[in-house]
């Protein structure tokens, strides 16, 4: 059943610079994770996406959140109840 999602996660991992990816439902439960994406952070990622959406409640589409650290960039986006986080290496 989740083969399509698993394939999509693997394809995302093949993109240059991507070191991790994770996918969560709107309850913050993990649907899939690869690489540095830790399953336990799914709840936090979903919560971040929900909070960011509250900044512009009138906007129909959810924002893309970018978190930058010294050695990594995390991109978070929600769509149709699914939140995806992509971990990219800065180097």
């Amino acid at each position, binding site marked *: 059943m989740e083969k399509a999602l698993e394939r999509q996660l693997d394809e995302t991992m093949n993109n240059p610079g991507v070191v991790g990816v994770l996918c969560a439902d709107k309850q*913050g439960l993990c649907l899939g994770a690869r690489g540095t994406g830790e399953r336990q952070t799914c709840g936090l990622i979903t*919560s971040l996406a929900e909070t960011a959406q509250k900044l512009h409640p009138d906007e129909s589409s959810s924002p893309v959140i970018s978190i930058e650290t010294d050695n990594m960039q995390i991109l978070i986006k929600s769509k149709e109840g699914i939140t995806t986080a992509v971990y990219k290496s800065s180097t």
Partner: protein
Amino acid sequence: MSMPECRKELKKYFNHLMSLVEGLYAIIITDRDGVPVFKVSTENAPELALRPTFLSTFGMATDQASKLGLSKNKSMISTYSAFQVVHLNKLPLIVTMVASSKTNTGMLLALERDFDNVLKDMRAVVDIS
């Protein structure tokens, strides 16, 4: 640190944890029979979910779930129309979290890490008795 002081500190810490997750109404730590060891709750928590009769069911359920051949049961999530209850198996202790059904379940599960340090000391006490 004296016992009342220790309890006060613990209460403060658990109240802090409760404030981290929106809609988390209660955190209860019990032994395997459902006897409360420590409890923090808000007025929104359903009274029935705080009773030992409710809390003791997880002890039995986790024992049965561990026999399914999928190794030891770690946690159980029960969702109801207005509430959700997350149980964590930290035997000999059991952590029960009562929250709104709209609460982010992943955030509740992520609290497990924060519980581990506190439970380490509590477990020693329960083990002796």
